[in-house]
């Protein structure tokens, strides 16, 4: 039988996996909405959002209780510190996904635009990075962390390029301004989701290696991920 703190840590891990999976499903729904695929009913999405919020609070409560009752140190301390941050990042991923779903409804000629500006790839990559983020927390696989850093960089570059092209299109054709603006907002949200995933990967890296790598430049992170073995 595990010690009391181990039971609490397992419980915390379970909640994070759960909230991570819920956020992943919200991102999937958001991408579907953007790519004009059939979306789960709005009610379900709202329900999931509420679940994410409740679990976010639950994680804070469990962490507070572990701090107060067990005074964790070393790897336990790093896990709990990371759990609090990860929960916050996940909750924001959920909010951004909801916002994408809402914005996607207001984009006219959406299908043509997303094809024209290669947004399908970006959306699929954001789905992938979300899945990989949950995987890296679950398995603590350091090579997955490296993949997340690389993928985030790709998403950022491709999104920047798409936004640049959309703005140029809006300059030429004023009829596309409303849809184009909404699309830029959606792209920014996708980028933010990818950033939150990267932040989570950084916390997982901290959990494993006791090294804080947030705010490091991409090249430095890449260097680290190249030397993970």
């Amino acid at each position, binding site marked *: 039988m595990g010690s009391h703190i181990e039971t609490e840590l397992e419980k915390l891990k379970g909640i994070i996996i759960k909230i991570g999976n819920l956020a992943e499903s919200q991102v999937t729904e958001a991408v579907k909405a953007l790519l004009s695929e059939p979306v789960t009913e709005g009610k379900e999405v709202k329900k999931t959002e509420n679940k994410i919020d409740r679990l976010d609070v639950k994680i804070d409560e469990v962490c507070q209780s572990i701090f107060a009752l067990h*005074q964790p*140190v*070393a790897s336990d301390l790093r896990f709990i510190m990371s759990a609090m941050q990860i929960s916050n990042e996940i909750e924001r991923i959920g909010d951004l996904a909801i916002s994408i779903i809402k914005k996607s409804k207001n984009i006219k000629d959406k299908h043509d635009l997303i094809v024209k500006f290669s947004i399908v790839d970006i959306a699929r990559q954001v789905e992938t990075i979300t899945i990989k983020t949950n995987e890296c927390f679950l398995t603590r696989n350091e090579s997955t962390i490296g993949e997340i850093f690389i993928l985030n960089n790709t998403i950022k570059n491709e999104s920047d390029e798409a936004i640049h092209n959309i703005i140029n299109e809006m300059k030429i054709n004023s009829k596309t301004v409303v849809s184009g603006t909404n699309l830029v907002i959606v792209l920014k949200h996708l980028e933010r989701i990818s950033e939150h995933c990267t932040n989570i990967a950084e916390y997982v890296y901290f959990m494993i290696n*006791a090294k804080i790598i947030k705010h490091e430049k991409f090249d430095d992170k890449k260097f680290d991920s190249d030397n993970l073995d």
Partner: protein
Amino acid sequence: MHKIESKNINFYYGETQALHDVSLSMKENTVTALIGPSGCGKSTYLRLLNRMNDLIDNTNLTGSILIDGQDIYAKNTNVDDLRKNVGMVFQKPNPFPKSIFENVAYGLKVNGITDKKIIEERVITSIEQVALWGEVKDKLKKSAFELSGGQQQRLCIARALAIQPSILLMDEPTSALDPISTSKIEELIYELKNKYTIVIVTHNMQQAGRVSDTTAFFYMGELIEYDKTKTIFTKPSQKQTEDYITGRFG
């Protein structure tokens, strides 16, 4: 130069080896915490630093312990002088059945100081150093047993300080005290390290974290890890240390 430098210490109680090749050095004006499960050798190591283990029959030591560069186990070492330089505070407060004043003055008198003025000055200074003066200044002639456990322990620390040591050894000094008294002793340790080199044995991980600069983890007579306290409690290099401080031992 380190204040305390122990090299390749092996220590035996009869046939039983209690310490295995322990090398550990401590800088002046630092607090070092010795942690580890019961029977790991931390108190044995502590008692070697003022030769308290000499009082136990059938013990044997190999290796060397230097204090200020002098081998304290050399044949020409005066053990009384050593113990004046290396004071000790024990787990349970152990005041003498004397007045508060006499408790602190006792060590001075035993060491041949007869000048009443000097004794009085030293007693007052020592009691002030342990932040007890305000609580006892009006009852110095009363029995030390009238003090609370926490006050008694601070009095014992004052008694140790009165003979002006440069090193203070503390063997679980707060294990018998309530949280408020514990907190006072911990604050005191923090203050005292400006003047003394302190080595403390503790079973309380949080206390080790709060009061010490460096921490040594002992297990089965071996020194498993010795590092800055911050490192030990955030990123220990040895799995055994991690398991112990996170409570997953055994």
